[in-house]
């Protein structure tokens, strides 16, 4: 069997099955070069997987083309109920960092949807 090459990451990720996996394992047992290359791929993989999961910066200033839509919407929509989404989803004790704050995201989304002809009703809007 030739060297594993591009198959190494698939093997590493458990993405090979059946005979392909068995053959790859057999080759790895005998080939120090492929084992070394797989270790290097694993280091790169771990570096990316170790990146922190970032939270959207919900208060980020909106670009001008969005702001214009929001302003127009705000003028037109006085009195119209906006979606009543809770600020994030409580997942349980100790999981606060998992909460995804929907408040501002939702306001901005609602503002954008207002300019969309294809979406006429707001799901969840108060009667």
């Amino acid at each position, binding site marked *: 069997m030739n060297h594993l090459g*591009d*198959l190494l990451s698939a093997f590493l990720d458990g993405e090979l099955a059946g005979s392909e996996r068995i053959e790859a394992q057999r080759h790895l047992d005998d080939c120090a070069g492929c084992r070394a290359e797989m270790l290097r791929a694993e280091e*790169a993989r771990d570096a*990316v997987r170790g990146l922190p999961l970032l939270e959207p910066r919900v208060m980020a200033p909106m670009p001008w083309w969005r702001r214009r839509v929001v302003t127009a919407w705000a003028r037109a929509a006085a009195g119209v109920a906006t979606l009543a989404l809770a600020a994030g989803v409580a997942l349980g004790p100790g999981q606060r960092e998992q909460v995804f704050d929907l408040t501002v995201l939702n306001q901005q989304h609602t503002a954008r949807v207002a300019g969309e002809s294809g979406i006429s009703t707001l799901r969840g809007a108060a009667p």
Partner: protein
Amino acid sequence: MAEDATPTWEEVARHHGRKIYNFAYRLTGNADDAHDLVQEVLLRVRRGLPSYRPGSFDGWLWRITRNAFLDEVRRRQRRPTVPLPDGDRNIGRTAPPPDEVLASTRLGEDVQAALLSLPYEFREAVVLCDVVGLSYEEIAEAVGIPVGTVRSRIHRGRKILRETLR
């Protein structure tokens, strides 16, 4: 999320919003662009949900996300092709203080910079695999390429990353 249920867009926002944001952030290194993409994807999800037929939701969602991202990139061709990381990082400083070096390592800025140096196809495959957590099959579906191409893009991307980070 159950495979056979069609989610609401609010559920998509809750369950996938952060992943969509991180996908875009890791591809661009830019928080504003990533935030815009979340908005755009939610809009497209909302438009598309009525015609969504239960199946591989992740494949469907990430195909939308990826297309939205590429459309946005095309629309902003006048910007640099590889945006600089956010301004609130230590751009331009040659020697950050030691405590900031530790913080920078923890935030993975070296890894982020290495990701941004990858050709787009490799970066996308690596991010979908190792940041978003999709299977090779799902990546193939989202990107519209054979699984064999996914394998090679991920492995080559990792090889370049490893060289860059060494």
